[in-house]
């Protein structure tokens, strides 16, 4: 079987070691890092996302594929940097202030990377100030905010306000998610989009990139 096709199937098949081996083999065969990413890894993760959304896979399976893909990307990263490949978009993501929950937004980060985005994950308990700082320091297209608690989701409009106050709001798109968050809430606070899970977050991010 052709190595890129094989690699794609291994990622979907959650085979971590085989993914690393085949990534290396693809490089040795002469494929560019960019081609491996674009023709194998990204399509693989798109399939995984679809499987998750259809309910065929759950978080453990999606996470294991993402973990395999992450290993492959680590191998490719220096070469991608060299090649000057443009990411699909540049994202800053974090869990809002007062909230330590991170598995959801970690998954979103991984899925976005697997889709070709460049992601800077600020971690948890991220103040509006830290969001603003991370954005000011870089050319950012998308901000993602997560919260798991009704008590902390009210920080989301605070971040949006801070972006506005710093003249950053109309230079990027804001997407939100997390257990208590809804489309209605996203609309209410003036976010650009809401996604209920990591797989649909990728589709949302791609849609929002088209608009910028």
């Amino acid at each position, binding site marked *: 079987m052709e190595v890129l096709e094989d690699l794609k199937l291994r990622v979907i098949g*959650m085979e*971590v070691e085989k993914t690393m081996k085949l990534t290396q083999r693809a490089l040795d065969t002469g494929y560019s890092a960019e081609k491996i990413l674009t023709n194998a890894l990204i399509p693989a993760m798109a399939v995984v996302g679809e499987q998750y959304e259809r*309910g065929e*896979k*759950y*978080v*453990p*399976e999606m*996470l*294991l594929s993402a*973990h395999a893909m992450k290993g492959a990307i680590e191998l490719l990263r220096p070469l991608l940097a060299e090649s000057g490949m443009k990411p699909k978009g540049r994202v800053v993501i974090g869990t809002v*202030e*007062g*909230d*330590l*929950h*991170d*598995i959801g937004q*970690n998954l979103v980060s991984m899925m976005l990377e697997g889709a070709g985005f460049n992601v800077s994950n600020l971690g*948890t*308990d991220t103040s509006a100030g830290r969001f603003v700082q991370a954005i000011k320091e870089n050319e950012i297209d998308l901000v993602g905010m997560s919260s798991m*608690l*009704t*008590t902390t989701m*009210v920080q989301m409009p605070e971040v949006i306000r801070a972006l506005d106050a710093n003249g950053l709001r109309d230079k990027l798109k804001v997407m939100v998610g997390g*257990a*208590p968050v*809804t489309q209605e809430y996203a609309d209410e606070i003036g976010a650009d989009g809401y996604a*209920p*899970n990591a797989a649909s977050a990728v589709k949302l991010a791609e849609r929002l990139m088209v608009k910028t």
Partner: protein
Amino acid sequence: MTSKERVLTALEHREPDRIPYDLGATVDTGIHYVSYKNLLHYMGKEHLIKEKEEIQFIDLVQGMVRVDKEIVDEFRVDARGTVPSHSSTWKGLVKKEGDDEVIIDGLGAKWFRPPGCYYFDQKEGSYPLAGMTSVEEIEDYDWPNLADPGRLKGLKEKIEELGEDYAIAIGGPVGGIFALGFRMRGYTNFYLDLARNPSFACSLMDKFTELEIQYWDAVLSEVGELVNIIVYEDDLGQQDRTLISPEMYRKLVKPRHKRIFSSIKQKISDSSYILLHSDGSIYDIIPDLIEIGVDILNPVQVSAAKMDSKRLKKEFGDVLAFWGGGVDTQGVLSFGTPDQVRDEVKRRIEDLAPGGGYVFTTIHNIQPEVPPANIMAMWEALQKYQEY
């Protein structure tokens, strides 16, 4: 009818005189110290307001207060509860690491409360088994004894103090065996274990099972005759589905849950029941839970997928009792108006109360931001629609 009779009648799937009410009998049906303080102000009960250091908690991690007797009596709360005492190796209250306050839980996991946060939670550094890679290493960990005699100290007296007219609930010293996987290994690690190293995940859960059975054996030997509701806390759902596939649950977790519930059932009377607390959408495994001995479901998260109160009652209400579902806490109770709260309570009671099998309480704890006017609206609506 005493409160106890009211609750037990409901749990026998018969209609008592009125719907029984719980506030604070379990650590997941209580109220946060911030919203409690606001409520006391609102009610003009300043004499009950305590300084932060003097507040008595039933759960430090979530910030759940022990509700004063004056309040539970006034609110006509029918279920009362307790938690195990501290282990004899308990090192005392909250420590500090950097700017964060830290609690070390019953199995050695760390919980942090950074400045300005309302709860303790886990993050990097929390997970004592994060570095564990093999089954052989499991026995290397210094496993605390969950059945440490300290756990039973004063327990009988605490329960007797609650009063024999009330239905009594008792919980465990740590979460359930599935939750413990996350809390001890870390969330990403344990999810990956389940997917790529299930025998390791199972061996870990076997260890947790062994420790928990020891706890329940000890506690039920001591106070089994005095308690009616065994509270088992194990989140199995996320907002839109189960945390793991139903197939994975049945293969890896269910046999262990079954061992624990069977062991508990052997030591309790026929007028005692197992309550499972599980957040999220667990509809797909409810038949499995019923099969292995779950009698009561809490909190009944109606905002999660397939967890609508009407549907759950229709499909499972003949064999499963519902302890919760009273008012949505992801939306209405926190952010709605008192009128919206009242409407919500009316609707949930209409869905869940007929035929008994229902104990009214909020869906999970009353969070810090819940306005006291909403709490009172909920309670007033309960009074209005409570009679059978």
